[in-house]
């Protein structure tokens, strides 16, 4: 039976990078339903290897793909959660994968500012990354690089199953039906009850369990019947879900 390989960003990761095994919330987060488990128990694949990583940019995942390539057999399935082209790639790569937005970097920088001695290197790197996003980043260059990498992957594995995570409008990279719709729907509802931004978000892959089940069904249907992946049937969370998925900072 064939294997499944999963590449991509936080929408694809199985063990959330934000909640590693030494984190207080790790076991709670891992007890939540994720589509990975549903796919595993579907019996479609003999093994599911998840190489996707939260905060990872396309280039870093491309490196992981190249390192893994010789293990992937021709009849194996490769799913790629396609991240945003503007996510910063840097030489620090795996050590600091969460270089993905100014807001996130700012909040991390504030956190480590009080521990400047301990985090001197990270402090410098985050400062450099913020500067990069603010003053140097060019969207057209990022888009070109993203498309080039994708074309390269498609030459090696034309059968990669692409799942767009973010809305992008550029030529050659136009996605309007994306996985982050589920996140947007959920956040809109949650924000009616709590301020999501000031809470610790425990959702796996940015989705509540119900949407994980829906996504898993959509994905299995799409792979088995070779039909387009649906993104339009995600559900709104209930007010009671707030206490399951959010903790005060």
């Amino acid at each position, binding site marked *: 039976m064939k294997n499944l390989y999963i590449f991509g960003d936080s929408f694809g990761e199985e063990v959330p990078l934000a909640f590693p095994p030494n984190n207080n919330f790790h076991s709670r987060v891992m007890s939540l339903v994720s589509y990975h488990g549903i796919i595993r128990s579907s019996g479609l694949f003999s093994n599911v290897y998840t190489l996707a990583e939260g905060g990872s940019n396309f280039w870093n995942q491309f490196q992981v793909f190249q390192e893994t390539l010789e293990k992937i057999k021709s009849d194996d399935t490769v799913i790629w959660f396609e991240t945003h082209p503007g996510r910063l790639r840097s030489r620090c790569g795996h050590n600091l994968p969460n270089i993905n937005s100014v807001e996130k970097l700012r909040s991390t920088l504030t956190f480590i500012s009080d521990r400047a001695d301990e985090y001197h290197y990270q402090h410098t790197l985050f400062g450099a*990354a913020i500067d990069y996003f603010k003053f140097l980043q*060019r969207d057209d260059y990022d888009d070109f690089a993203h498309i*080039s990498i994708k074309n390269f992957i498609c030459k090696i594995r034309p059968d990669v199953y692409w799942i767009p995570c973010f809305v992008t409008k550029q030529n050659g990279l136009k996605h309007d039906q994306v996985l982050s719709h589920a996140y947007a729907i959920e956040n809109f509802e949650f924000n009616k009850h709590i301020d999501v931004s000031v809470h610790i978000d425990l959702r796996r892959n940015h989705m509540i369990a119900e949407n994980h089940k829906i996504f898993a069904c959509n994905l299995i249907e799409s792979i088995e019947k070779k039909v387009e992946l649906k993104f339009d049937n995600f559900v709104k969370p209930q007010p009671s879900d707030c206490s399951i998925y959010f903790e005060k900072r």
Partner: protein
Amino acid sequence: MKTLLIYGDSFGEETMHNHIMREKTMKFRTFHSDIRESGIFDQVIVYAQAATDLWDQYKIFNKTFTGNEYVLWFETDPLRFSGPDRSKYTNIATTISLMNSTTDEYIHTRCRAAVHYWMYLQDEFYVNFVHKTIIDDIHTRCKNLLILPCFNTSHSFVDECLAAIPGRELRYWNFSYEELERNKLCDLRRNHMSETNHAILGSMLVDYYKTGKVLDFNKFQDPVNEKVEKYFQSLI
């Protein structure tokens, strides 16, 4: 109509972007004149600009190349910074020097950002991947393409590059960049070459376009008939 389009960095530009240097150097003859006067092309258009990275020139290429023109490309260093205000942040040395000399907070901040990018964030494999992709695309689209490596890091580099010429000339004149700096002199060589080597490059290019003969970078010479004072002057 036979047209030659020239893209690239300072090795390909026709007019120096610094206006004071431009006035002082316009009397020097360059390889561009040899190509123009050869009559091979009905028109020669130069898009190359000093301190430009490949991405900026590629965007100009996408807007200007229609599919039939001859293309001469001076291929720059892949690690040249690809950011806004390109001429300010051409490499880490000039950016640090600009950062230390400016009192303008905006320029200072951007210089610092560029320096930090080079020091902490630039991923050479990534930059080279994108560079190669662009070069491959240019190769695919141009039937009549000649790419000249400006640096030994340029992907078209085999065993010689144009950047070797300015150093060779300085050694012949027994002159150094430190001396240049110390005496606050400007290097007025157009495309970093004396007229001696411009004539050699011009002749090789004309020969290439007439007969297809491959350029031989070993033909560049010491500027034995030229005085160092001609090219190194104070602008004050």
